[in-house]
């Protein structure tokens, strides 16, 4: 346990819980069975999601702008990784730096180790708190077991809490109880790709189901050249061949007519090269494991859910900046919620959550820092008329930070922050509100507002590195690079107007969205303005100003008959940084204004005929800048290179042939248009081709 001081009662939370109790006492009885997404989707002819409000919603009724990517979409993409699927959707940016190293952002603000995007599998976070990143290859889920990927754009923190500020990607798998998914797939390809995946569902009875999934990948890293000899000398040793192992067991038991219990265990190991937040190549070994238990019950007080999970991460980094770091991060999250209706027009969701997060100090071990978060949230969904609904959600988070243990630093090194500085509290209010107007049978208009808080990543709070400076820096003799427990969370506000229109004559759907975002208290892990402590320069994590963004998305998807499918979307975005320091992005990769492409266009054309299925995807993005550590003269000013990623067109595609009812062979390709293209400051991404054989039994 962390040393914690001043753990005070959470009065606002208690108030909400009291309100919840009163409301539930007045609620009409609601009995029944738990959520069966597959059956609900079949009834209503469209995906159902709970990622928007915590309450089941039809995709066309959600009070947020979101994409729901179905299993059919996943299969047709021909992608062997989730980010390659996401690339085709409006407002999503994907930066691939290596075979397995990839970063995803929503509506710009991309950076290496992209933070701010909350990634979940069935509501369990797989986003990693130590650097606030998502190691996509370490997510213990196989493509064949995914029912849908739900992408919420913009802050959705009133439901998911801290860090869901850019958006949420919730990966929903098939139910072990309600669905029967048995698949096996092998894939071989360029870069010596060898990938196997198997998913088996076992229905022990009509009241007990278990799904087991296993996956493994081996490949060779790109061997595209570095831009110059300095980069090759600095980076080449950190180029390793990626590998991945993953196993998961998910189970669901109908213990009574009204209650279900679920248990889930996962494990993943991913070893890869990736561009780290220091904009240099780094060898990363991720090991994750998790255990989760859920209980769901239809009660007289509504649909009640309780869950608890624990995520464990061990990661080793070897690079010039992340130099032999061993990091252990454990997250425990417990949550209870009740979903109920009052009358016929009002739905409510009330929830309480506890989260404990801890990490060892690094590079020097010996202590742990962490925090406890107590949260209370409420959602009210009001069906004003058949055509108009209003959803409001609010969440209060109370965070108590703490420090335990001691680090044995050399006598001449005195860290600027003593453990008592970690006795700190952060309180935050997150809000989401959405008005949905179904103006006609063909038109849906959404007006939404979201306010979310993004916590500093654990390393930003606790990191402490020191070293000597060469004589050229005299009178300075040394440097600190220091995490800062006093960092303020980043606050993101999002205002949005969106319009969906069906075009029955074209069997098509048009989606338009315009948004404006403000980001305040942006953070940088080390600003360009060091704090001088005697003859030591301290590059201190800090809040470094803000940034604003506005833009729009336009898309159309449709089908022609039962054979053709097509789509086109366009994203326009302008970002204006308001940095108070670090304007030249000297020491940290904050470069949002020039790092966000102004225009992105995606196109899709697909055709099915009997056993044949063919899909071609095009992705175009205009140029953007990114940063790179040059490995040249360390005294260069500024030390980071600004690298221009040129405008580029990507062609991805798949041709599949169904050999029999369950067996499909497919030829897939990513980056078909050229042998290489550049997405980041890393060496170019090579064309990837693969051949897959998939069986569904």
């Amino acid at each position, binding site marked *: 346990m962390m040393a914690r001081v001043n753990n005070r009662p959470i009065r606002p939370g208690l108030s909400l819980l009291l309100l919840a109790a009163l409301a539930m006492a007045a609620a009409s009885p609601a009995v*029944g069975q738990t*959520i069966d997404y597959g*059956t*609900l989707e*079949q*009834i209503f*002819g469209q995906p159902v999601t709970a990622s928007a409000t915590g309450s089941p919603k039809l995709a066309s009724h959600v009070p947020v702008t979101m994409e729901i990517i179905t299993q059919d979409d996943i299969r047709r993409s021909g992608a062997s990784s989730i980010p390659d699927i996401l690339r085709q959707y409006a407002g999503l940016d994907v930066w691939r730096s290596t075979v397995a190293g990839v970063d995803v952002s929503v509506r710009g603000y991309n950076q290496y180790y992209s933070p701010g995007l909350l990634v979940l599998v069935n509501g369990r976070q797989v986003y990693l708190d130590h650097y606030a990143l998502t190691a996509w290859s370490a997510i213990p889920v196989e493509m064949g077991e995914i029912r849908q990927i739900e992408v919420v754009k913009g802050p959705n923190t009133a439901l998911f809490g801290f860090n869901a500020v850019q958006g949420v990607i919730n990966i929903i798998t098939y139910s072990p109880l309600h669905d029967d998914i048995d698949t096996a797939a092998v894939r071989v390809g360029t870069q010596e790709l060898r990938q196997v995946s198997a998913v088996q569902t076992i229905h022990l009875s009509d009241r007990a189901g278990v799904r087991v999934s296993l996956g493994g990948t081996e490949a060779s890293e790109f061997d595209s050249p570095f831009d110059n000899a300095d980069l090759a000398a600095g980076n080449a040793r950190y180029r390793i061949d990626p590998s991945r192992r993953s196993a998961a067991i998910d189970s669901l038991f109908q213990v009574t007519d009204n209650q279900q219990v679920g248990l889930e265990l996962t494990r993943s190991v991913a070893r890869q090269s990736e561009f780290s937040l220091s904009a240099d190549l780094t060898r990363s070994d991720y090991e994750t494991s998790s255990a989760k238990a859920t209980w769901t019950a239809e009660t007289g007080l509504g649909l009640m859910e309780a869950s608890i999970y624990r995520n464990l991460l061990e990661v080793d980094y070897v690079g010039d900046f992340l130099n032999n770091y061993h990091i252990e991060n454990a997250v425990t999250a417990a949550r209870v919620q009740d*979903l*109920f209706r009052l009358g016929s027009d009002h*739905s409510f969701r009330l929830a309480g959550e506890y989260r404990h997060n801890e990490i060892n100090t690094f590079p020097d071990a010996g202590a742990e820092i962490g925090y406890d978060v107590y949260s209370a949230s409420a959602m009210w969904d009001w069906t004003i008329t058949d055509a108009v609904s209003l959803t409001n959600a609010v969440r209060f988070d109370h965070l108590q930070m703490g420090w335990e243990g001691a680090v044995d630093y050399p006598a001449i090194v005195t860290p600027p922050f003593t453990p008592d500085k970690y006795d700190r509290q952060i309180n935050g209010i997150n809000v989401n509100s959405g008005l949905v107007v179904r103006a006609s049978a063909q038109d849906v208009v959404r007006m939404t507002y979201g306010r979310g808080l993004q916590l500093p990543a654990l390393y930003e709070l606790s990191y402490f590195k020191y070293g000597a400076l060469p004589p050229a820096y005299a009178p300075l003799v040394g440097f600190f690079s220091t995490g800062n427990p006093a960092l303020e969370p980043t606050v993101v506000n999002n205002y949005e107007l969106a319009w969906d229109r069906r075009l029955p004559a074209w069997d098509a759907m048009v989606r338009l969205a315009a948004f404006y975002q403000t980001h305040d208290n942006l953070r940088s892990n080390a600003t360009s303005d060091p704090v001088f402590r005697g003859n030591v320069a301290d590059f201190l994590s800090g809040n470094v100003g803000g940034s604003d963004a506005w833009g729009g998305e336009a898309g159309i998807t449709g089908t022609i008959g039962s054979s053709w499918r097509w789509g086109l979307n366009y994203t326009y975005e302008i970002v204006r940084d308001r940095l108070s320091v670090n304007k030249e992005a000297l020491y940290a990769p904050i470069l949002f204004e020039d790092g966000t492409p102004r225009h992105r266009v995606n196109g899709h054309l697909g055709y099915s005929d009997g056993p044949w299925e063919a899909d071609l995807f095009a992705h175009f993005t205009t140029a953007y800048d990114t940063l790179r550590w040059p490995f040249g003269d360390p005294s260069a000013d500024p030390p980071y290179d600004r690298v221009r990623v040129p405008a580029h067109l990507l062609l991805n595609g798949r041709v599949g042939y169904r050999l029999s009812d369950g067996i499909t062979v497919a030829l897939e390709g990513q980056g078909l248009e050229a042998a290489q293209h550049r997405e980041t400051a890393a060496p170019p991404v090579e064309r990837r081709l693969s051949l897959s054989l998939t069986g569904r039994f």
Partner: protein
Amino acid sequence: MLALLALLALAGPAFADVGIKEFQIVGRTLSMLTTRPTGRIALAVVYAPDVAASRQEAEDVARVLGAGFAVGGLTLAPVLVPVDRLAQGLDGATAVFVTAGLAAQQDTVFQAAGARALPTLTLDFTCVRAGKCVLALKAEPQVEIVLNRRAAEQARVSFASAFRMLVSEM
């Protein structure tokens, strides 16, 4: 059975509102009941022989469902029940489908079904609005389901909360 054979013999052109899609929804909606039926179940199709629209719809239902219509984990087996023979016709049924044109008899059907805790489903939204059917649905151009909460309570049937969140309740 005699009634079914007689109706099939008299069957005319299909009524446009009754089709496979509607009964796919009916079957899956029944699996949203809190006491989830499984396997082969009897769906009592209540009709008034002397009302053309009602008789026509019953014929269409019988044709669509045939000897048994599999949807999800259910097989819907239609049993045509003349409205004047409810007492015998509803025995053994798991759910009741109320045909159109039964306005005068909807209360009778609702009471008889309620006495057996059977859900009453229909394509006739006026029946639900009148509180004499539990649930009405249509499949085209978009799926629409209306649930009468009070009628459900009176009939002692209940649906999963998740399902209720997605339908229009009145």
